[in-house]
């Protein structure tokens, strides 16, 4: 606790930045788990950006026409073809789960175990339903539309390879996140963090918000543009 007092005396902003790096002490005033999660997320940003840059390059260089995403991802509801409707629902589900996770972090710091547990479970359920819809989308694309990683009937063959790789890797992140959230939620309910503190909920939250963040970019670049 003596550390807290020391930190309150340190300056903010640029002066604080210099002090944090120059003083003979730990640079980041955060739990090590959080610093490590951030470093992981920065490296994951590089992986996803490499995928999206690969997509950019492949889409620019191919002379075959790029398939019309809006029409391929349309879904017929009530006898009407609505463009991108499943993707829109998936987007809203992921945002909702991000919101419930943010609340879980907040209630964690308030040491409200019940609310934290249930909000994390809600987040995990929303995440699982996202993966379920993705499985539905993949099935529709593979079975009904005949899209394969090596070709499709609509245009450039690269469409399939990019689609399955990017959304697949993101889906894997969501699946991993659901498992991670459920483990942390169970430990919260059992009271494992009563002594250690509830930073772990925030760390799990960082991962979950990152998954949502990546989806924002995939939604824009892959489905809308």
């Amino acid at each position, binding site marked *: 606790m003596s550390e*807290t007092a020391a*930190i309150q005396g340190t300056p*903010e*902003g640029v002066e*604080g*930045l210099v002090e*944090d790096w120059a003083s003979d002490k730990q640079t*980041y*005033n*955060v739990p090590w788990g*959080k610093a490590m999660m*951030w470093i992981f*997320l*920065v490296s994951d940003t*590089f992986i996803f*950006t490499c995928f999206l*840059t690969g997509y*950019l*390059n492949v*889409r*620019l*260089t191919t*002379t*075959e026409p*790029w*398939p*019309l995403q*809006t*029409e*391929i991802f349309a879904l017929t509801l009530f*006898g*009407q073809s609505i*463009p*991108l409707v499943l993707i*829109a629902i998936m*987007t*809203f589900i992921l*945002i909702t789960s*991000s*919101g419930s996770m*943010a*609340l879980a*972090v*907040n209630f964690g710091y*308030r040491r409200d175990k019940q609310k934290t547990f249930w909000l994390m479970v809600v987040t995990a359920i929303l995440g699982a339903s996202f993966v379920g819809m993705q499985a539905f989308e993949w099935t529709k694309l593979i079975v009904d*539309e005949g899209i394969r990683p090596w070709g499709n*009937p*609509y*245009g450039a063959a690269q469409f399939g390879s990019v689609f399955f790789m990017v959304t697949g890797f993101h889906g894997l992140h969501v699946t991993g996140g659901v498992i991670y959230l459920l483990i942390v939620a169970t430990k919260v309910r059992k009271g494992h963090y009563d002594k250690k503190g*509830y930073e772990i909920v*925030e760390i799990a*939250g*960082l991962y979950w918000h990152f998954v949502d*963040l990546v989806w*924002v970019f995939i*939604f*824009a670049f892959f*489905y*809308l*543009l």
Partner: protein
Amino acid sequence: MSSEAGQQHPLGIYYKIWILLFVLSGFSYAVDYFHVEGGLRWFLVITFMFLKAGFITAIFMHVVWERLALVLTILVPPVALLFLIGFMTVEGNYTEGTRYQYRGDDPTLMPLSPSDIHGGGHSEEAAH
């Protein structure tokens, strides 16, 4: 407030950002729904994308409340990625140009839509 005491903030700000993200996603979807095309489509989609990404990182991931040392560690390395994107755009355009120029690929080809393939099974307006 430094994060040593944990990131504790009033709940109101989370609800506000939550609603804002919903509205921004709705706008993004509306761009597609109302068939906004061309430069305006790119501008709107990318603007909404960066606004959403910014609010998620700043508020939900608590970056605005972190100390500058951590903020810069998170935000500076990805700047390198902007160079990668820039270089790949230039190089991609060049490759495409050479393919049209030397391989004689047809730049006027149009993609097929599901209604072309399924013979109108998917949408009403397929009269082909």
